[in-house]
């Protein structure tokens, strides 16, 4: 039987309203945390749960919380990262649209644990209607005494505000997000110091993903130990996977970590297999930044073991034959997909989204885009393929924030696993199935 934590009540009519949400046990965790637990006890439960950040990096949430500087005497902040701009990822949007109170409940418990009296939800500017939904839910929470001064008659005060971004992928990176929230360009900061020490307005700050925070209510209610009974090994709990591309049932699914990739891909409960009866060609398992894997390596590891939807199993084989769970953006490519065109498309994305601070990323992403554009349009040279690998390797690890890596990995992995396709494009460009689709002479439209 499939077990759910986040989306258990998603189909309850009216669950978006406070009354209905509360009647399903919503906000119980706030009562429990504020009245029966100390902040440190909440942190301990989250540590015990093994919950890992759902924004992409998978850093243990409880450990991140324990780094927050409590000695400085400065106010502390929690920022909920709802920037969600990683191509292939649309789970946070779903969660906020359907269950806004689940996020707010989690944020209240989290702020209590961190000793933060202000929380911001940084929502990408394109999700305007989500901002409306969140503002409504926040208003209800204030009215019912779950936000504001002396919450539930305790000494704890908390304000939560929604803050709108304005179209910049880089603002999903936590330090860029902080800059953006301060009203500046989204240029990432050098770490250390980490936000837990010097964050928003120079104060201790924790940035967590929407889905991470939405799990906190369950952990407070049931204990970290109970949470850890979901999933396998160090991949505890459930994960929202947003599935898209050439599949029968695109959408958002809550899976228990440990489900096999094969089942997720082919079971009618989930993706329901490749669309139009086509063959599977490749999968990007965790949002566009993680390495692409060919069909043979996504279903089984190089060692021949069944590949599972866990942090560890997807990473099995390192970058030679593995990938990452990332943000849970599961993009499926069928046999007709042109890997070269897709790689060029993603290179263009990263070029467009590079903030421009670091030369390797600013220049390198542009070079990769141009070279791939050349290959895709039939003007490639054989040495271009190694040139791409070389540029990618020079960006990786040489930038302030991981956008550089995120730009390099998709290209390096596409060439690693589909080199023949790039060679074919150089030698016989006319054979490309896409040559008839659309010639983009506009290299970039900003």
């Amino acid at each position, binding site marked *: 039987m499939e077990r759910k934590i986040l989306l258990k009540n998603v189909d309850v009519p009216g669950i978006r309203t406070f009354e209905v949400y509360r009647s399903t046990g919503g906000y119980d965790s706030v009562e429990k945390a504020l009245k029966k637990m100390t902040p440190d006890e909440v942190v301990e439960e989250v540590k015990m749960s093994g919950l890992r950040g759902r924004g992409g990096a998978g850093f243990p949430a409880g450990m991140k919380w324990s780094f927050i500087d409590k000695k400085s005497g400065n*106010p502390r902040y929690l920022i909920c990262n709802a920037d969600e*701009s990683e*191509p*292939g*990822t*649309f789970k*946070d949007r779903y969660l906020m649209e359907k269950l806004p109170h689940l996020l707010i409940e989690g944020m209240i418990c989290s702020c209590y644990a961190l000793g933060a009296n*202000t929380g911001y939800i940084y929502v*990408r*500017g*394109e*999700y*305007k*209607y989500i*901002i*409306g939904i969140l*503002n409504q839910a926040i208003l209800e929470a204030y009215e019912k005494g779950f936000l504001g001064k002396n919450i539930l008659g305790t000494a704890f005060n908390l304000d939560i*505000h929604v*803050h*709108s*971004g*304005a*179209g*910049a*992928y880089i603002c999903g990176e936590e330090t860029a997000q902080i800059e*953006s929230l*301060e*009203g*500046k*360009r989204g240029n990432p900061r050098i770490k250390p110091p980490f936000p837990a020490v010097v964050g928003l*307005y120079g104060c201790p700050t924790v940035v967590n993903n929407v889905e991470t925070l939405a799990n906190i209510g369950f952990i407070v209610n049931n204990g970290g130990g109970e949470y850890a009974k979901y999933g396998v090994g160090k991949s505890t709990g459930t994960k929202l996977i*947003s*599935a*898209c*591309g*050439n599949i029968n049932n*695109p*959408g*958002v699914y809550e899976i228990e970590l440990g489900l096999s990739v094969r089942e997720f891909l082919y079971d009618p409960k989930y993706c329901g297999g490749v669309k139009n009866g086509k063959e599977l060609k490749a999968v990007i398992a965790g949002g*566009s930044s993680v390495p692409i894997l060919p069909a043979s390596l996504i279903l089984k590891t190089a060692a021949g073991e069944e590949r599972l939807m866990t942090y560890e199993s997807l990473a099995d084989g390192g970058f030679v034959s593995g990938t990452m769970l990332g943000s849970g*953006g599961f*993009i499926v490519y069928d046999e007709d*997909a042109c890997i070269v*065109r*897709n790689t060029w*498309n*993603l290179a263009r*994305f990263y*070029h*467009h989204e*590079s*903030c*421009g601070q670091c030369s390797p990323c*600013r220049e390198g992403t542009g070079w990769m885009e141009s070279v791939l554009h050349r290959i895709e349009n039939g003007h490639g040279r054989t040495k271009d393929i190694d040139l791409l690998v070389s540029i990618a390797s020079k960006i990786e690890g040489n930038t302030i924030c991981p956008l550089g890596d995120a730009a390099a990995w998709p290209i390096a992995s596409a060439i690693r696993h589909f080199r023949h396709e790039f060679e074919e494009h150089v030698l016989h460009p006319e054979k490309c199935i896409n040559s008839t*689709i*659309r010639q983009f002479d*506009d290299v*970039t*439209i*900003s």
Partner: protein
Amino acid sequence: MLDKKINHPLHAKTDIPVRFSEETLERVRKIIERYPAGKQKSALLPLLHMAQEEFLGYLSVDVMDYIASLLEIQPIEVYEVATFYSQYYLDPVGKNVIEICRTGPCAICGGEAIQSYLEQKLAIKTGETTPDGLFTLKAVECLGACGSAPVMQVNTEFYEFLTEEKIDHILDDLRRKSSEEKPEASKWKEKFF
């Protein structure tokens, strides 16, 4: 980095009074209150969204200067932000801004063909505005709706699982709505900010 250029002084002067209504100013004060005292610059992004919607549909230099004066910051602090974020337009746009997603997941689900179809139907290239000023077509990066690819956003509305027939309907609909009055601006402000 693809900083947009500010067309100064071409769009510096606008023939409308650049000043929020009292009602909007009250809203502005509430937004500024969300941030600690002295950190009013944090309100810049939301305020630019409001200004773009309220005045011209794009940010002219005098609109940006007005926002700078409201927040008591230097105009350059506004320009450098306005040029960084793709949702702020620095050139005049049509009444409806159509933003078609061009990123990978949409592209493999037929997004490119939809973009071409839009260009054909509107008889403009991506980046241009129709001569009647009704539509501007832009190509944007992933809108976070890849499960319903291909996707586009018009103004604040999402349109999903696009097909050519759907595009026909949507454009007709938008044409009809545009001939009616513009919806009361304060309504969306209540909701979104």
